[in-house]
């Protein structure tokens, strides 16, 4: 624009009125969905690298069904909101993150349809649901297709075949040691492993007379994959569950944007650590009898803090971090205040570990989130903020 161009004064009556503030920090709800989508796509990319095109297959089915169901319903009810599609897309992507890459096509179809219908459409959209739609869908498929979503063997692409390999058939990894030690030159494209979450929820097979430390050391040494493998995700599991590093990066993004509040993360991790260190592990003796051993987190063996290693495995195993960092911060199904968020995280941490360790439940993180979501009403009522000036007034000097 040239400097001497004269812009006319506004016409009479053309000036806008309306109350302050005239400055808005968050322009609508679509950017929230966009940020969560960005976070979810980081996780999806990690799934793509670990599981190849199968990730895209599950993702495409899940997203397509989610969008289809959402738009069908908004057509039927003639209730259109610019952002309902954005949220359906988000539900589709996040739902794909919770599934293993090897599921049959009908699992994402049923699950995504369930998630959108029960989770989002029936309650009346974003802001009205109590339970996170993704978790509702995930619990539904957990009940309906148990073997599909928590298979005995998890597939992951072999070294040298990441991203481009074909997730098919495969060789059982447990006979060969860790993923990293598998020879690259082999023609096998897929390795089968048992994710640590499965081992951790099952009783430890051991012999009588073995000390706590020795038992846990045996678990860590002989049965569980190396701990760094669980960070990179080469131990298999759900598309978004496997790679802990990607989940943490996504969580940091949400933390930075303010959607994830740190009290929740701290409370969940602290409670999970304390509980795993304390709660008894179940052991299965050779003669078939069950027993329990308390305080596994304190176990040490030949000067090694194997108990701490055991706690670390619990933190990175399975769906815990995905639930905590990507699903729990959903604005609508989480509590209102930060103090509420701390309690919310506390419930997630406690319930996840209790269900996993004491009851041996698979997918305990999703159940924990459902339970925590149910408690949000109570949490909100008990964690209201103190209104300025309403009590504890300092004396006037």
């Amino acid at each position, binding site marked *: 624009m040239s400097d001497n161009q004269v812009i006319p004064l506004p016409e009479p009556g053309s*000036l806008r009125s309306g*109350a302050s*503030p*005239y400055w*808005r920090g968050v322009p609508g709800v679509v950017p929230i969905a966009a940020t969560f989508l960005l976070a979810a796509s980081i996780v999806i990319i990690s799934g793509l690298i670990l599981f190849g095109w199968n990730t895209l297959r599950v993702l495409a089915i899940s997203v397509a069904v989610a969008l289809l169901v959402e738009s069908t319903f908004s057509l039927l009810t003639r209730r259109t909101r610019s952002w309902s599609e954005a949220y359906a897309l988000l539900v589709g992507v996040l739902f794909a993150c919770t599934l293993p890459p090897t599921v049959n096509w009908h699992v994402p179809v049923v699950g995504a349809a369930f998630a959108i219908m029960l989770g989002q459409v029936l309650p009346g959209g974003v802001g009205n649901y109590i339970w996170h739609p993704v978790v509702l869908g995930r619990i539904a498929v957990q009940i309906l297709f148990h073997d599909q979503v928590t298979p005995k063997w998890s597939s992951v692409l072999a070294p040298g075949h990441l991203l481009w390999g074909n997730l098919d058939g495969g060789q059982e990894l447990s006979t060969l040691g860790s993923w990293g030690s598998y020879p690259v030159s082999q023609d096998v494209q897929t390795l089968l492993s048992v994710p640590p979450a499965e081992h951790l929820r099952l009783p430890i097979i051991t012999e009588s007379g073995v000390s706590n430390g020795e038992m846990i050391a045996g678990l860590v040494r002989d049965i569980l994959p190396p701990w760094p493998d669980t960070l990179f995700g080469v131990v298999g599991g759900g598309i978004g569950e496997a790679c802990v590093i990607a989940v943490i990066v996504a969580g940091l993004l949400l933390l930075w944007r303010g959607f994830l509040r740190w009290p929740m993360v701290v409370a969940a991790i602290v409670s999970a650590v304390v509980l795993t260190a304390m709660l008894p592990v179940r052991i299965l003796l050779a003669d078939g009898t069950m027993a329990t051993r308390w305080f596994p987190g304190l176990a040490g063996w030949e000067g090694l803090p194997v108990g701490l290693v055991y706690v670390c495995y619990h933190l990175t195993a399975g769906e815990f971090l995905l639930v905590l960092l990507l699903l729990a911060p959903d*604005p609508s199904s989480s509590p209102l205040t930060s103090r509420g968020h701390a309690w919310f995280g506390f419930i997630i941490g406690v319930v996840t570990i209790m269900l996993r360790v004491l009851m041996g439940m698979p997918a305990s993180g999703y159940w924990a989130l459902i339970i925590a979501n149910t408690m949000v009403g109570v949490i909100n009522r008990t964690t209201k903020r103190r209104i300025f000036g309403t009590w504890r007034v300092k004396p006037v000097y």
Partner: protein
Amino acid sequence: MLDFPSPAVLWVPMIQHDGPAGCMVVDVGREVERGELIGEAAEAGSLNVHAPLTGRIAGIGHVDTARAFDVPAIQLEPTESKGVDEGARETRVSSSTLPDELKDIELLADLADGAGLTDFGLPTVGLGDKLRRAASKGVRDIIINTIPAEPTLLVTKLLLAKYLDDIIKATQWLYSALDARRVWLAMDRSDARQVTGYRSATSGTPIRVVGLSNKYPQGSPTLLTKVVLGREIPYGQSPIDVGVLVLELEVLPALVSAVRRNEPMVDRIVTVGGPAAKRPGNYRICVGTRYADILGYVGLSHSVVRIIDGGLMKGASVKSLDAVVTKQTSSIMLLDQDTDRIPNPGPCIHCGWCQEDCPAGLDPMALLDVVERGCPSEAKSLFPHACIECGLCSYVCPAELPLTEAVVEIKQKVSLDV
């Protein structure tokens, strides 16, 4: 500070604060001197109004201001052609000839009243009334706030740099007149040089400099009282009730002018800004200047869709170019089509940010709900009067709901008694 030329005509409104109108004391056709009394405070809470420039009373009528409509006003045709800046006050007396102590708060309050000074706050009251109230409540702590009331206001920086002597002088008067314990100068700690400069300049005086974060709404009197002195103001009371007088920095130079030369408050340094302003900056603008004149002089770089009297968070929209500037005008923001977002409210998504970010710990979502259901009597248990009207709840709400508007509405409807 930029010079603002004297406009061809001024419409000086009789209400320039949040209170009743002054009473006109001049007739049409009369010649008045700059600073001559033209509107007299007739009832409690009203303020004197003075002629901003030398000129002729050309008529009597009504004008709109940003916060009031159809206010009785005096039309003044200035005859001096000088700019409205410091040039008009070249004959200043050096402030060092003034007394260090002014023991009588009544005298100080009367001088402030005579000069028609406001307390420069929002809501705006007369400075004299505020000082008398402080004296009668036995206030012993004074906080001078130099933190901008809004992020876009730039005036305090300028005053701090320019009026060090005046600031120290006026605080000494207040200190001795109120027999205060201490005067706290709340400063933005991000400008470390200015803070240390003031620390050394005020050593040996009763002034203590406190460096604070300038995070909005730190400049609110309620929060300053809490942050500086650790006193939480009980529900429904004001800082004076807990023994604290919070004054805006702009009061001090104005008070010195009033005491020194009986120079009344007829203009104000106004930050003109916003994306549509071609020459943004701080101007000394007379009260009664029409917005049309201001826009015409400052120039436009984009076409304006909204004129804000005040800042972006707490300002008021100006609906007509014929409206005029008052003693309440701290800044003028000119917004263009791109920057003025018209909110598009959707259903609340229960994210809780409004509750989390409210500095008073209120639940704006519940208060909006009460307004929408039309039963303000339920609002009492939600303590709406704790709201400091900062606008943060609307600012953070992703559903773009008019939360601040609702809380302010409830405050007017629900009486204070708990």
